[in-house]
C-alpha cells in the first residue's frame, strides 16, 4: 500500500520546497523559465479559457448569479461534474462519493478546492431542488450546486468534453458522463477521473492537483 498517506502527504508539503532546493542546487537548474515559455504560457491559458471554460451565467443553489469562468474557475482549483436531482442510475453513487471526497478534503474545500455540481436538467431542477438535494447529501460550504439556462449548461458540458461522439447516446441523460473534471486553472493542470472511483483515491488525485510539487512512491 502507499507509504504516503494523505495526512503524511499534507505534512510533507511544508518540507518539500526545502528538500527540493537542495537537490535542485545539486543539479544546477535555472529557477526562472525562459521568456518564450511565459508568452506561450499566457497564450495557452487564454486558449483553454476561450475553448473550454466559457464565461456563461449560472445560478447557484443559493440563487446567486455567477459567471462560470470569472467567478467559479479563474485562479482556482476546481472539480466539476454533472448530475440531476431525479437521476437514480449513476448520480447517487457519484454524488455520495463526492460527499465522501468533501469529508476527506476537510477544510481545504472552499479554500484550496472548489467543488461544482451542475444539473443536466435545468428545466426540471429549480434552485430549491438543488438546495434540497445538496442538503440531503450533507454538503458543506465550498461545494456549490449550479443551474442555468439549458443552452449555457450545454455549452459548458460540451466545452469540458463531457459529450459522446454519438448524439443518440449523448441525448440519453441516463448515460451521461459520470466523470469528474478537475483542474488547477492558473497552472493549467487539467485531467478527469471517474466519479465512481474510490473516494480516497479521488481525494488523493485532487491533492496532487492542488499541491503538484509533491512526490509519491508506493511499496509493494
Amino acid at each position, binding site marked *: 500500500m502507499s507509504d504516503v498517506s494523505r495526512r503524511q502527504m499534507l505534512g510533507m508539503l511544508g518540507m*518539500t520546497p526545502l528538500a527540493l532546493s537542495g537537490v535542485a542546487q545539486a543539479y544546477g537548474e535555472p529557477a526562472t523559465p525562459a521568456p518564450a515559455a511565459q508568452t506561450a504560457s499566457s497564450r495557452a491559458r487564454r486558449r483553454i479559457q476561450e475553448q473550454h471554460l466559457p464565461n456563461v451565467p449560472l445560478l447557484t443553489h443559493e440563487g446567486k448569479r455567477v459567471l462560470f469562468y470569472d467567478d467559479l474557475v479563474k485562479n482556482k482549483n476546481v472539480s466539476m461534474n454533472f448530475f440531476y436531482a431525479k437521476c437514480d442510475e449513476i448520480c447517487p453513487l457519484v454524488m455520495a462519493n463526492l460527499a465522501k471526497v468533501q469529508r476527506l478534503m476537510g477544510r481545504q474545500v472552499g479554500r484550496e478546492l472548489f467543488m461544482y455540481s451542475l444539473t443536466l436538467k435545468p428545466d426540471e431542477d429549480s434552485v430549491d431542488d438543488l438546495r434540497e438535494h445538496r442538503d440531503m447529501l450533507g454538503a458543506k460550504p465550498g461545494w456549490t450546486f449550479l443551474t442555468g439556462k439549458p443552452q449555457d449548461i450545454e455549452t459548458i458540458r460540451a466545452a469540458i468534453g463531457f459529450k459522446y461522439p454519438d448524439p443518440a447516446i449523448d441525448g440519453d441523460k441516463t448515460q451521461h458522463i*459520470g*466523470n469528474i473534471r478537475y483542474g488547477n486553472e492558473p497552472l493549467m493542470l487539467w485531467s478527469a477521473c471517474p466519479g465512481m472511483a474510490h473516494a480516497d483515491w479521488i481525494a488523493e488525485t485532487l491533492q496532487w492537483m492542488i499541491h503538484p510539487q509533491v512526490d509519491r512512491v508506493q511499496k509493494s
Partner: protein
Amino acid sequence: MYYNVFGEKVSKRRFKQMCAAAKNRRELIAAGLTSRRDLFKMGLLTASGMLVAKHGLSARAYGQSVTTNNPPSSGANSSPGTNQNCVPGNQTASPPTRPFVVPLTVMPTARTVRSLTPAPTENPNTGAGEVRAAPFQAPQIDSSRFPVVPQTLYQFNQRQFSTSQHPDLPQQTIWGFDDGSGPRSPGPTYQAFYGKPQITRNINSLPLITAVNNTGFGMASVTTHLHNAHNPSESDGNPCDFYTAGHFCDQYYPNVLAGFNSTNQPNGDINESLSTLWYHDHRVDFTSQNTYKGLLGFYCLFNQFDTGNEETGFHLPSFPQFDIPLVFADKVYDPSTGDLVFDLFNLDGILGDKFLVNGTVQPFLEVSPRRYRFRLLDSGPSRFYEFFLTGGISSAGTPTTTSPTTNPFFLIATDGNLIPAPVQVTSVRVGPAERVEVIIDFTKFAGKTLYLENRLNQLNGQGPVAVDSQVGPQNSATTECSLVLGNNQPAILPAGQGNLLLQFRVTGPQVADNSVNPASKPSFYQLPSTSATPRIVRTFKFDRLNGQWSINGQFMDCNTFRFAVQQNSVEQWLLTNLTGDWTHPVHIHLEEHQILTRNRVAPTVPADIGRKDVTQLHPNERVQLFFRFRDWLGKYPIHCHNVVHEDHAMMALWHVVAEGDDVNVP
C-alpha cells in the same frame, strides 16, 4: 480603460474585437448551434474539437483568412499529409506546412557517463533526492552479474527546451531528454546489449510545476517506463511512483532474457530476445500530455544474433546507419499562433492533423539503393496506422500517374520481437505503443521517390474504421464525421490519398549491402511453446460505464492491487470488449504474451503471430493470451494504451508475489 478576461489592459480596438467575438458566440448559441455536430455542419469545428478561426469568433483570429467552404474531401487530396479525416471543407485545424522540406532527424545514440554522483545505491538514496519504490532486485539475485553500480551508466535530464518541429511553424517549447549532449525529443536512442546491465539516472530537471510557465498541458511530475523491458518493478517506471523537479530515480535495466532466474537458467530464453523497446513518461492521469509534450525515445537491444552489424549474426542491416528507428505522432497546432496544442478536455481519444516522424512534420530521408531496417513506433496518443510503401507520386507529394503504386516490403518483427522468419507484406497495421520492424529494399528504386503512407481511415478516438461495411450500421449518419464525410467510409483509403508521412529519396550513393536478403527466408528465433497448463485463467472486460473507462467495472486506483500473480507461474488472460465501437490497444507490463485465439480462432495475420506486449482489442472481440510471469517480484499495471483512455482510469495495478491469488475476474 479596457480589460480582457485575464485582467490585462487591452486597447480599445482589441476590446471591440473581444466584444465582437462574444457576440458571435452568443449568436451561435442563439441559433442553437451549440453542439459539436452543429458546428461541424457549419464548418466551424474541427475533428480535434477546436473552433475554426472564423472571423470574429476568436479575437486572436482577427486578420486571419481561413477558407471553410471547400467541398469535403472527395479523395482528390492535393495537399499531402493534411488530415482529411473528418475535417469539414478540407479544412485543417493546424496552419499549413510545406511537406518534405526538412530532413528526417535520426536520434543520436545515447551517451554513457563514467560515473554518477552520488553513486547509485541498492536502497533508494532518499537523502540525495532519489524517489524509488524499493531496493534494486537484480543485485540481490546475483551481485556478480548485476553489480549495484554496473559498468554502463547513463544520466538523463528531463528538460524543457525550445525546438522547431517545422520551418513553417514557430519554435515550440516542449520537453525532452538530455544525455549530456543537450535536450532533444524524441530522446537519444539507447544502444543496449543483453548481458550488459545498466543504470539510467532519470533526473527531473523540468521547471517547477508551481512556476506558471506551463504551455497549456503537461505535468512536470514524472515516471519513466521502459516499455516491454523484462524489468524489476522498482525500475519499471510505474505510473504510481512519480517525482518532481530536482529529484531523480535510478532505474536498473538488467538487460537479461526472461527466464534467467526461473525456466531457462542461467541466461534466459533466447527465443524471447527483444529488439525495439521505447521509453516514455507514465505519470498516472497525465501520460498522454507528457508523452505528447515529448517525453519519449527508443531503446534498441542487441545480442549475439541481432548484433547491429550486418556482417555478423542474423546479418540484419547495420545500426545506426541502415537501421533507423522511426516514431510516428499526430499533433495539432493552433491555427492563429502555431503553438502546439493538446485537447485537455477529451475523453475519447485525440487525433492530430499534422504527422510527425522523429519530431518533425513530414520529413524526408535520403537513402541509398540498398536494404534498410526501419523500426516503426506508433506513439499515439490515439491514432492507429496502416503503413504502405507508395510510389508513383512526385517529389512534391502529388500523384504523377493515375495510379500510385503499392510496393511490398518485409515484416521482420512485432513489438520488438523478431518473428520466426520475414514475411512479405504490402501493409502492416499498428496501434498506439505497438512497434513493427520492416526491411525495405530500395535497390530497384534508385533515383526515385517513395513514401511511407498511412492509409488507415480513422475518424475519431474510437479507433480505426474496421471494415467498410461497419461504418454504415455502426456509426450510421449519427456521428459528426459521417455527417461531414458521408457514410461510405472505406477502412483503407486509396493509394496516395492517405497521410503521406515520410518521403524516401533514393538518391544516396551506391554502397555495399552485406545484409541478409529477407526473401531468402532466413530464420530468426522460434516461438516458445504455449502448451503449459495455466495456474489460473483471468478475465478482463474493457468497458465504458457512463463515460468512465473501466476494466471489469472498476477504475484505476494507485492504492489497490486488483490481483496477485504467482511468481514463475503460467496464466491465461481473456481480454473482452463488448462495447461494439471502441478499439483498445491493451498493454501489459513485465511479461510479453502470445495470442492463443482471437474470437476463438487462432491468429491469422502476421502481426498477431509473434510475441506481443500490446494487443489490439477490437469491438466485440475476445482475445485469449498466454503468459509466463517470471523472475521479478512487485507491482505492474495492465492498461489501455490509447493514452486518453489510460489517463481516464482504464488501468489496473496487480503484483507478482510468492503466492498468487485465485481471483478470476479481478
